[in-house]
């Protein structure tokens, strides 16, 4: 369920990219448009979608989808 919702966030943030089903190995830079600012937009969308808040440390250190998944599980 987490991965499905996270994939929806990726699709919304990067509408021109074809997001594969297995998103585990994706990270900042996986697509050309996935830069630091786009990544922040993704994290904000994740916060909204999962009704959670990341700390500043988390916002500046979560760079991989696998890390985001783990963090959501702990929230």
């Amino acid at each position, binding site marked *: 369920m987490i991965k499905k919702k996270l994939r929806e966030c990726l699709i919304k943030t990067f509408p021109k990219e074809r997001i594969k089903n297995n998103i585990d190995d994706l990270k900042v830079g996986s697509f050309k448009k996935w830069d630091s600012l786009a990544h*922040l937009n993704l994290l904000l969308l994740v916060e909204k979608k999962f009704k959670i808040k990341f700390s*500043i440390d988390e916002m500046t250190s979560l760079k991989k989808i696998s890390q985001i998944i783990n963090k959501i599980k702990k929230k």
Partner: protein
Amino acid sequence: MKFHHIGIFTKSISYGKKQILSFLTVKNISKVYYDTSLGVKVLFIKDKSNIIYEIVSPLGKKNPVKKVIKENNNILNHIAYKVKNFDKKIINLRKNGFAPLIKPTRAIAFKKKRVCFFLTPLNFIIEIIEDD
């Protein structure tokens, strides 16, 4: 929040300064500050209407300027504000959907007061500077 400056990214301080001086009447120019924590060199220019422009150029290999210059995007980079209650302001900005670009960092140009950069929900960048 009190407006402080507009941050402009440039390949070098001398080039940025030359360009600003070519179209503005300037009141004051600061010294150049070298900030290894933030990876930038900065210079402040105050114009006749008391608007302060912060000219920001790269310092070291790991810096936030290089990519911006290369992509020619976000050159007019950020608007900076001085804030009282820095910690409370950060919590408040986070509540309102502002995303931090870096952890709060002490800035050489502001007497080692803390600064933090946020992407606003309107998709532009602001800097907050800890005020006395």
